[in-house]
């Protein structure tokens, strides 16, 4: 079952339609990548899910029920623009934020202890936030986001501002949260982390949803039916159904070619055909990267 569904969401600002008939389904227990160029409408959608603003049209369902105030404590949100009260002690601040999400002071205390031990940051408790480095503040904010063990966690560019070591730490935490059954909406521009983490993606471009589905299916959809081969010999008399797109000589004298085959052709036939003509060192399918898909999908949408 889907933990969150949006149905035909429309959000209109004065001159600008931020979301236009956006329907997405977010399956439970997955990492859902919400992608799109700047200004596409991602933040507007995230704010609607967080009930910071409401949609002009359309509905949002959480756990099958219309989204309402009772769901606030089940959602955790890490906005792209991070911020904490600078003059407040770390411990007090986290206790406060947790209580706003409905935890009692005691519950919050217990959970915080566990996180402070886990991240080995016990000495930060009585420090003012402004005395911490930016990366440390990010860590604190991450703890604040997930402390109340929300079912749905919304992370907007969670890795920005982290050094590689801490980014890895956070990545492991995200994966662990999924293991524990949380669903994560992951909004980012960084396609390599989408590649690495996301199970599902939706792509929003110019206020409209242009792509949506499991990452594997989308990759399948964007397959170009091209293969690469590294070989020695002359690649001339192949089956005319196959198109050699390009050829280049590698540093060690081998050649590398990209070949497109018809949609219904069998790969085995291509391999057999190749072996007849050249000596093959390596062969593989060209699988589109998320980056390719992103550029293709965004570029293809007609401008209005």
């Amino acid at each position, binding site marked *: 079952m889907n933990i969150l569904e949006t149905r035909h969401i429309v959000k209109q600002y*004065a001159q600008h339609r931020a979301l236009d008939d956006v329907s997405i389904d977010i399956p439970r227990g997955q990492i859902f990548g919400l992608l799109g160029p700047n200004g596409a409408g991602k933040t507007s959608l995230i*704010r609607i899910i*967080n*009930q*910071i*603003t*409401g949609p*002009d049209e359309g509905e949002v369902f959480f756990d099958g029920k219309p989204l309402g105030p009772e769901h*606030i404590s089940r*959602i955790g*949100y*890490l*906005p792209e*623009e*991070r*911020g*904490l*009260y*600078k*003059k*407040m002690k770390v411990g007090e601040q986290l206790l*406060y*934020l947790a*209580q*706003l*999400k409905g935890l009692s002071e005691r519950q919050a205390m217990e959970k915080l202890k566990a996180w402070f031990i886990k991240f080995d940051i016990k000495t930060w408790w009585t420090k003012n936030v402004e005395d911490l480095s930016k990366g440390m503040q990010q860590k604190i*904010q991450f703890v*604040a986001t997930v402390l109340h063990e929300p079912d749905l966690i919304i992370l907007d560019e969670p890795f920005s501002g982290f050094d590689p070591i801490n980014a890895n730490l956070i990545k492991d935490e995200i994966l662990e949260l999924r293991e524990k059954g949380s669903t994560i909406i992951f909004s980012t521009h960084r396609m390599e982390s989408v590649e690495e983490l996301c199970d599902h993606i939706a792509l929003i471009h110019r206020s409209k949803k242009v792509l949506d589905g499991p990452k594997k299916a989308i990759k399948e959809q964007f397959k170009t039916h091209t293969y690469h081969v590294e070989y020695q010999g002359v690649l001339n008399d192949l089956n005319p159904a196959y198109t050699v797109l390009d050829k280049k000589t590698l540093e060690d004298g081998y050649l590398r070619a990209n070949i497109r085959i018809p949609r219904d052709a069998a790969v085995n036939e291509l391999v057999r055909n190749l072996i007849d003509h050249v000596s093959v060192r390596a062969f593989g399918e060209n699988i589109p990267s998320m980056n390719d898909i992103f550029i293709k999908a965004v570029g293809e949408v007609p401008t209005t």
Partner: protein
Amino acid sequence: MKIIFLILKREYLVRVKKKSFLIMTLVTPLLVSCIWLIPIFFAMRDIDQKKIEVIDETGKFASTFKNTKELVFQPVKTPVEQAKKDFGKSGYDVLVHIPGNILQNPKSLKIYAEKNVSLEVKNGIEKAIEQEIENIRLLDAGIDRKVLESTKVDVSSDTYSLSDEGEKDSSSGAATGIGYLCAFIIYIAIFIYGVQVMRGVMEEKTNRIVEVIISSVKPFQLMAGKITGVALVGLTQFLLWILLTFGISSVMSNVLGMESLGPQKRVEQMAQQPGVAQAPAIDKPKTEQKSSPVTAIFKAVSTLNIPLIIGCFLIYFIGGYLIYSALFAAVGSAVDSDTDVQQFMFPITIPLVLSFIMAQFIIREPDGAVAFWMSMIPFTSPIIMMVRIPFGVPAWEIVLSVTLLIGGFLGTAWLAARIYRVGILMYGKKPSYKELVKWVFYKT
């Protein structure tokens, strides 16, 4: 409600724990105590006892000088030259020499002292002798002083207000004082704490924490929690100021060696001080022995409707603060930086400053049309009505004004909340007034 309480608690504790709060809370009563204790201290220091030897060559002034706590007179018979020579060893502070020809030549009076004689003592002695000479001359002319006194008239008036309850002694002086004091406190409090609300909103916006907070709570809850939290900070501070001023005053007065008196008594004492010093040891004529001005003020104040004034003060204090702090919150939400604040602060502070300026005119004509209308408009009524109330305002006017105040607050809070909820998420360029109006009608 639980959420608002949580927010209120944070807003309150964060501010109360600040060093600046602590300093302000301590320094202000200290200053206030100093301002009104030091003059008393100096006034009282002059009262150390002075011994005065009097050489009266005429023998007619024996009963002129009466001993007081501060001045002790001792008639002596030693010749002047001898007394002057022995003055250093005699233990007297002042030597008064009344020559035999004083009646003919009043300027021949001589006062000697090692240090300069204080003006009060000098004047006092001169006056006493002057009067005695006058008496003697009058007597010589066959006029009894008492006859003369009875011809003197002293015109002074007490003001009375004629109200339904009949004639009541009212002092417009006391009413003016109380009214102005209340208006001033409200004016200052709105500014201090309204700006604190605005700063708080701006801090959350520029810190970007606001987005996290309003994913947990409604913008209105955040605004309401902040405004009430700051209100409690203000009440705490005022309460501490009153208690500390009282405490510090009594400690200081002990340290300075004053009798530990209640502040009222001390005021009375201070007020009486000049009178005592001016005419030491003089049998004051009966007409001068009217009640001291301070007692008069207390008498006048007691004729005012104190419970009504206190009740109205609280209502207008809280109402005025709420209206303006909601507007200040809206301003804080609309801007990104301190430099933009000025433009939006200006229109808000106009009615506030205007009513404070108008207060001094209205105090002279508390029942005029301007006074009436300004005490009805919710943006000016907290100050103007407080100026008028000590003079007596018909009940229906107060009820109407308070109703309008409550209505005004609800309207302002609604408006402010509409701007606030949009403003806190808007970054970038400074909005125009037109845009602010648009925000009000945004659907969320």
